[in-house]
Structures are given as structure tokens and as C-alpha cells.
């Protein structure tokens, strides 16, 4: 995978509805602005859901292509962000059902680190592994709710649009996820 493309100032300033309008008008390349704008968050979200960068890349790429093909069905382009998260969330759920061997860590062998890894990077990786292990102890719904709220920074309204769930349901999941995460983190030294 390559590094994320850098958007120009003009590309950063144009609103989602304006970009959507250009894409629907036939400007395929304009879709690249939306990709550049949202892929980092979508990749982060999908990686937490699928616990695999490769599977997350597949889910996000599939989701974005699907979003392009069905862009006309996005009723309110001012809420494009939550619409994209909904699509990618669905791809993640599909991936959880049909995952492949290459996406998953090999249980019989220790994880291998690259030559460039330093002790600090390993420490960060261990901290991330600790939190990810705790995150995996949550139910998939709790995990998604926690990630959308506290990692992707969505409001409950946005989360409702992204997941199709009611706000009281989402609040309950987030509250339970917080308690369960604290429980799980306590168990690890």
C-alpha cells in the first residue's frame, strides 16, 4: 500500500456535497478528494473491527468503490461521512464472515518485526496489542460503538446514521464497552 495522497488547499476546502455533485456530473477524479479525506479514518475503523490491516484495506477499498458506484443513492451528501462509514461497516461485517488465512496472525509462530523496528516502536506496539486484546474481549457491537465514539470521534447522531441503530441503543453499547474495556485492561499486567 502507498502513502496517503496529500490534498491541496482547494481540495480540502470543497464541501462534500460539491465534490459529490462533480463526481455525479462525470468527474471521476473528483472522487479522489473523498478518498483522501476519509480513507484514514475508515482504515483505522476497519482495522479495529477486523484486527488485520490487510483485511481492513480490502474492506475499505471495496466500500469506497461501492460508494462510488452508488453515490447517487446518497440522499444527503452533507452526511456523506456517516454514509461511508455505514458502507465500510457492512463490508467489515461481510469480511468477518468470510475471512482468509493470509489476513490472520499465524498462531504457531511469533510475530516477526521488521529490521527498522526500535525498542520504542516495539513498546508502542505492545501497548497497542494490550489495548487491542482488551478490545477483542468486547462484543462486536460494543467494539464498533466504542471505536466510532472514541476513536473516530462521532456524535451519537452520526453513529446512528452510520450504524442504523437508535441512539439509546448506541449509548448503552458505548457505556457497556467502557466498563468492559476497563475490566479487560485491569487483567493484563
Amino acid at each position, binding site marked *: 500500500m502507498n502513502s496517503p495522497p496529500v490534498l491541496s488547499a482547494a481540495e480540502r476546502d470543497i464541501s462534500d456535497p460539491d465534490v459529490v455533485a462533480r463526481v455525479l456530473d462525470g468527474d471521476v477524479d473528483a472522487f479522489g478528494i473523498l478518498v483522501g479525506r476519509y480513507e484514514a479514518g475508515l482504515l483505522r475503523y476497519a482495522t479495529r473491527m477486523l484486527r488485520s490491516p490487510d483485511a481492513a484495506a480490502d474492506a475499505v477499498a471495496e466500500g469506497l468503490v461501492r460508494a462510488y458506484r452508488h453515490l447517487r443513492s446518497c440522499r444527503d451528501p452533507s452526511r456523506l461521512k456517516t454514509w461511508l462509514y455505514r458502507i465500510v461497516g457492512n463490508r467489515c461485517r461481510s469480511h468477518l*464472515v468470510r475471512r482468509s488465512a493470509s489476513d490472520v496472525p499465524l*498462531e504457531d509462530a511469533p510475530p516477526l518485526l521488521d529490521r527498522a523496528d526500535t525498542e520504542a516502536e516495539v513498546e508502542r506496539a505492545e501497548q497497542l496489542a494490550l489495548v487491542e486484546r482488551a478490545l477483542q474481549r468486547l462484543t*462486536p457491537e460494543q467494539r464498533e460503538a466504542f471505536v466510532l465514539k472514541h476513536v473516530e470521534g462521532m456524535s451519537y447522531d452520526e453513529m446512528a446514521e452510520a450504524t442504523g441503530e437508535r441512539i439509546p441503543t448506541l449509548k448503552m453499547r458505548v457505556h457497556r464497552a467502557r466498563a468492559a474495556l476497563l475490566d479487560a485492561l485491569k487483567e493484563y499486567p
Partner: protein
Amino acid sequence: MTAARLLALLTSLAMPLAAQAGGARGGDRLAGHVPPATLPALDSMVEEAARAGLPTEPLIQKALEGVAKGVAPDRLVAAVGASAARLRSARALLRSDGAARPSDPAEVMAVAAALSRGISPQQVARLSAALPGEPTGPALHAVADLVGHGFAEDSSVDLVLAGAQLGLRGLRFLDVAAAAVRELQRGGSHAAALAHVRALLPHVPVPPGPAPAAVSRARRVQPSQRP
């Protein structure tokens, strides 16, 4: 790979080291490595196992391990004795189940290893009966892997046997267990993980092999450094 070579390969999965009772005398292997005061007791246990047709290598290994770990002599002797008892129990279990090869050293060691990993004799018997004439080591370890991750023992055996019925053998049983553990680690319940993997059978993922760079870096254990 021919069937004969495959069977030989699967048979070796229980213990790669020579385990035949006709191997080097235990005393020869242990002398100079174990505390002299323990040598008579240990040698006696090894000889008794050899006379009984039990594999002796696990006992020699356990003694060498205990010495390396600095274990007190009485604890060393007790641990080797416990290993011998486990081997005897394993063979008795194989005989009582009417196993085709109750005295096969690899089978005895595989069953002993499973018992030491907490698999009940009843479930060992189930697996042995379902895989007549075949090495049970990988299946037993697959069950032990699942139990080690909190899966119920009988459900674990059910899953492995379901794989066997669909033609899986040998190391593929370990892949079945690995698939269920991965599903669990993704946040599913134990029941959901088992159901998911059962639906995949027999096409559970095979783990990728080591990268060519890793293979080219591999060194052999120096034979001169081995006793």
C-alpha cells in the same frame, strides 16, 4: 507425497526424537548430567519403562530438563516418575480402547502429552476410536489447544471429529483449532466460533509458510553442542 511417506510424517508428529525402547541405555545418556545420587533411581525408572515396552525418551528428556532447570534431586526423581506413570496410563488407555497400535511409542507419547495437557481419558478414547489405525497426536493437540482457550472439551472433540469425517488429517487438525481460536479472538462467543469453523470445514485456512528470507537465515542446532 506417497501415502506411506505421509503416514511416516504424521507418525513423527508426536515426538521427533527417537523413542524406541531399543535406543541408548538411559543410564548412558544421564550419567554425568544428573546428580550422581539420583542416577540409580532414574536409571531404574528408565530401565523399567524399557522392559515394559514404553518409550524411554520422554523420561530421559524430563530428567535432563530438570537438571538444566536446577531442580532439587527429589523433585527431579518425582517428576520423572510422574512422566513414567503418565506413559503407563496412556498405554493402558490405548489398550482398553482396543487401539490398533497400543504399544506404538509415538501413540503412547501423544496420548501421554494430551493427558498432561488436561484432556480427559474419555475424550482421548473418543478420538482414538474415531481414528482407528491412525496417529492421534495432532487431533489430541488440536483438542488441547481448544480447551486451553476455554472451549468445552466435548465440543472441541466434536469439532475435530467433524473435520476428520470430512477428510482432514494430521496437522490440519491444528488448523481447525487455530481457526476457532482466531474466531474467538475476533470477539465471537465460543459457540459462535465453533459454529463458524464447522461451517468452513474442511476448508479451514492453512497458515502461510515462512518467508524465503527466514528459510535462508535458518541455522541447524549444532550437533557438537548436544550431549
